[in-house]
């Protein structure tokens, strides 16, 4: 590409050269290399930027604080932790398992102790079963039993024999004109 050597770099092209000279097109780079004016402009601008850095450094107060580091050495702790990673993982899993069981279990372990709780629960169950047995025997309350005349339960053996005679004993009456079994 041909170019007019008398045409100098524009300000924007100079800025591009300051950012990265190798990014300029070859023609402009060649001009910058050979043109003393453009070279001087570039150097002048770069000096201003260098001056910014220099003044910033000059006008920065010195740090009065000393850097303090902890006593433990990072590498050794890191290595120790890496070595114990499996153990930490296992412990964490077990802890999580215990927590899950604790929250989902139907019974809870309380400070009172398991044996006492079991004894109390057994006693409650026993009284409940007694109540159920009574109800199964006489479902009606006592008041109703009195009304229907079934509240008296003191029937003796003789009375029961009268109501339901035993089949092994001899019949109480004999009538040959009627059907029946003849005694031997």
């Amino acid at each position, binding site marked *: 590409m041909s170019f007019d050597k008398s045409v100098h770099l524009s300000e924007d092209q100079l800025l591009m050269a300051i950012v990265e000279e190798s990014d300029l097109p070859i023609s402009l780079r060649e001009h910058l290399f050979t043109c003393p004016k453009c070279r001087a402009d570039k150097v002048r601008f770069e*000096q201003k930027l260098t001056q910014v850095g220099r003044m910033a450094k000059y006008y920065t107060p010195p740090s009065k604080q000393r850097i303090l580091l902890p006593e433990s050495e990072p590498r050794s702790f890191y290595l120790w932790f890496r070595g114990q990673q499996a153990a930490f993982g296992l412990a964490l899993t077990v802890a999580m398992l215990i927590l899950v069981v604790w929250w989902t279990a139907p019974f809870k372990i309380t400070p009172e102790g398991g044996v006492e709780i079991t004894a109390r629960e057994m006693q409650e169950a026993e009284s409940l079963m007694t109540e159920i047995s009574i109800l199964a025997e006489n479902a009606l309350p006592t008041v109703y039993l009195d009304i229907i005349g079934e509240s008296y339960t003191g029937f003796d053996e003789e009375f029961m024999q009268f109501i339901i005679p035993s089949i092994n004993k001899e019949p109480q009456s004999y009538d040959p004109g009627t059907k029946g079994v003849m005694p031997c």
Partner: protein
Amino acid sequence: MPLSDQEKHNSKAMETASQVTALVNQARAGSKSAFEQLVDLFHEDIFRMVYYRTRARMDAEDITQEIFLNAFKSLSKLKKVEQFRIWLFKIGLNRIRDFYRKKRVRSIFGAYSDDDNIDQSDTTNNDQPEALNNLMKHEFWKHIGLLLEKLSRMEREVFLLRFMDHLNIREISQVLKSSESSVKTHLYRALQKFRKESELINLLKEEVTSQ
């Protein structure tokens, strides 16, 4: 044949780089004294970097302490040992971001005023040359502040890292996790705005002629 200035500078930089790499390796192996040597090497750079962004000495000191403590604790996470300096800058920028976030929250609840941020450590001295120096310092930071206000966040960061922290384009792209072309674009835009800051440029000229 004697070495040129550039060659001398390059060889010195390489020597420092290999020294830093060796110290970082020792520190990673558990040597606290090696890390202390690294602190000595980079303390000033990191303190200045923080000061340029906070312009308050005490805040800068506290943040610098945090940066080195953070680096000390997480040194094992550093993947490329030779990029220790870049890594420190990354930590630094994150800590500064945290600092401004906290400051914003505190200002919402009225527990922080902007006056707290003014560095008044040197303004009490009325000695004649010292007072002139303080005036110049005040003017310089005022104009830098005005310039930085006109830049976008990325332009500001790129400008500070390039011309005040003296990082090259590749290093800046690593610190900001951005492409080199993006860094160049932001730097170009920042320079366009810098060129328009006539008062700052005049101040720089005065300083050059007075030296």
